[in-house]
């Protein structure tokens, strides 16, 4: 790349003239330096900004004892249990040894046909409603702003009376990513109500006898 100025030979005789100086500047060092700087900046720049997932937990301060807890239908409750090695189990209803029969624990996984299928099946009405609304917006049948869309989806979620109430319970061996994955599934399937709750001893026993 560098220009090598060759001395022209073969001129015999004649007057000795002052050598003509080339006016070109050798830019190679400059290019080298720039390459270096660009590489440095490219490596140190944080291109992708970190994304966050917002979760809100219920306040821990003890409730007013006179306040009535909302009654939830047994059949709407979907319990998801997370355990060691990315295992996902679920059962429907309430596990209370005093009130047999006990629900059966079903094993599933985080794949597309795993827990997502079950959630979508349970949340069919709400999911279809939201998906259709979004479709309408994409195809241009309705023109709404982003905030209106968000509000409308929020309203749909609030008014939903059929979808599952998902209780997420992780045992001691579950990994952090399992919890993130499952909350993510909630977002994907547009689940209106879900909560992360502590696992109880009955469910721990259920996990012990669960299919491996």
């Amino acid at each position, binding site marked *: 790349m560098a220009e090598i100025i060759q001395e*022209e030979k073969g001129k015999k005789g004649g007057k000795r003239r002052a050598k003509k100086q080339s006016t070109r500047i050798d830019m190679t060092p400059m290019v080298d330096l720039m390459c270096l700087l660009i590489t440095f900046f490219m490596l140190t720049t944080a291109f992708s900004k970190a994304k966050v997932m*917002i979760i809100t937990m219920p306040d821990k301060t003890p409730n007013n004892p006179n306040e009535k807890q909302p009654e939830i239908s047994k059949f709407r409750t979907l319990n998801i249990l997370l355990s060691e090695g990315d295992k996902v189990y679920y059962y429907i209803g309430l596990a209370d040894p005093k009130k047999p029969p006990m629900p059966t624990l079903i094993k599933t996984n985080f794949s597309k046909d795993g827990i997502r299928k079950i959630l979508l099946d349970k949340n069919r009405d709400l999911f279809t409603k939201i998906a259709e609304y979004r479709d309408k917006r994409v195809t241009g049948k309705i023109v709404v702003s982003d905030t209106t869309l968000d509000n409308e989806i929020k309203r749909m979620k609030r008014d939903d009376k059929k979808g599952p109430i998902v209780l997420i319970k992780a045992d001691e061996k579950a*990994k*952090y*990513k399992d919890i993130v994955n499952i909350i993510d599934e909630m977002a994907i399937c547009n689940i209106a109500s879900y909560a992360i709750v502590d696992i109880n001893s009955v469910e721990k026993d259920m996990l012990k006898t669960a299919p491996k």
Partner: protein
Amino acid sequence: MPKIKPPVRTPHIDMTPMVDLFSVLLIFLLLTASFRPQEAAVITTPQSVSEKTAPNEDIMTIFISKDGKVYFNIDNGRDTSTHFRSKLLTKIGEQYKITFTKAEISKFGTMSSFGLPIKDLKTWLNSKDSKEKEKLQTGIPMDSTDNQLAWWVREARLTNVGAEVAIKGDADTDYKLVKKVMDLLQDNKVNKFNLVTNLQKQEVTLKDVPPATK
């Protein structure tokens, strides 16, 4: 006939356009650069579909590494004159009866995440050897007898009232530990967390809904 010899010349490439291009790139990168903050530990965040971006300022982050160490970081706030970090260190020092010198406080103000017991903080601030510094990073203790992380969170909440809380946990950390941190935050009246994740798109359409069984 004598052959006509073309004069021998070295091929010369005009580098001006190249230099131009490089200058443009360089200027672009210089202007858009937001430096990756130096973090005390390597953390691989789990993936999610969330597209919300984390706030740049007014955020305190709790890092939970794979080996179970807990680190803490808080920024100086949107307004550079607030010096939240320096104020926080002075307060924590008062709490644990450690007086930090002016130089130590101002040095702490410019640093980022840390994960060490308060008693080692002075040594860490004055240490010049990076290996020694790394050795001191043993995680912030959070046992029930001496819950220093709780103190950091509490004082940070009092110093910067508007700060949000982010948890940056490694995908393979035990949930038990994350739960412990979340409980601790809830005890300090933080009920909204930002879990730092990596974006991974996933599309679910109406076709994915399984057919209704009747």
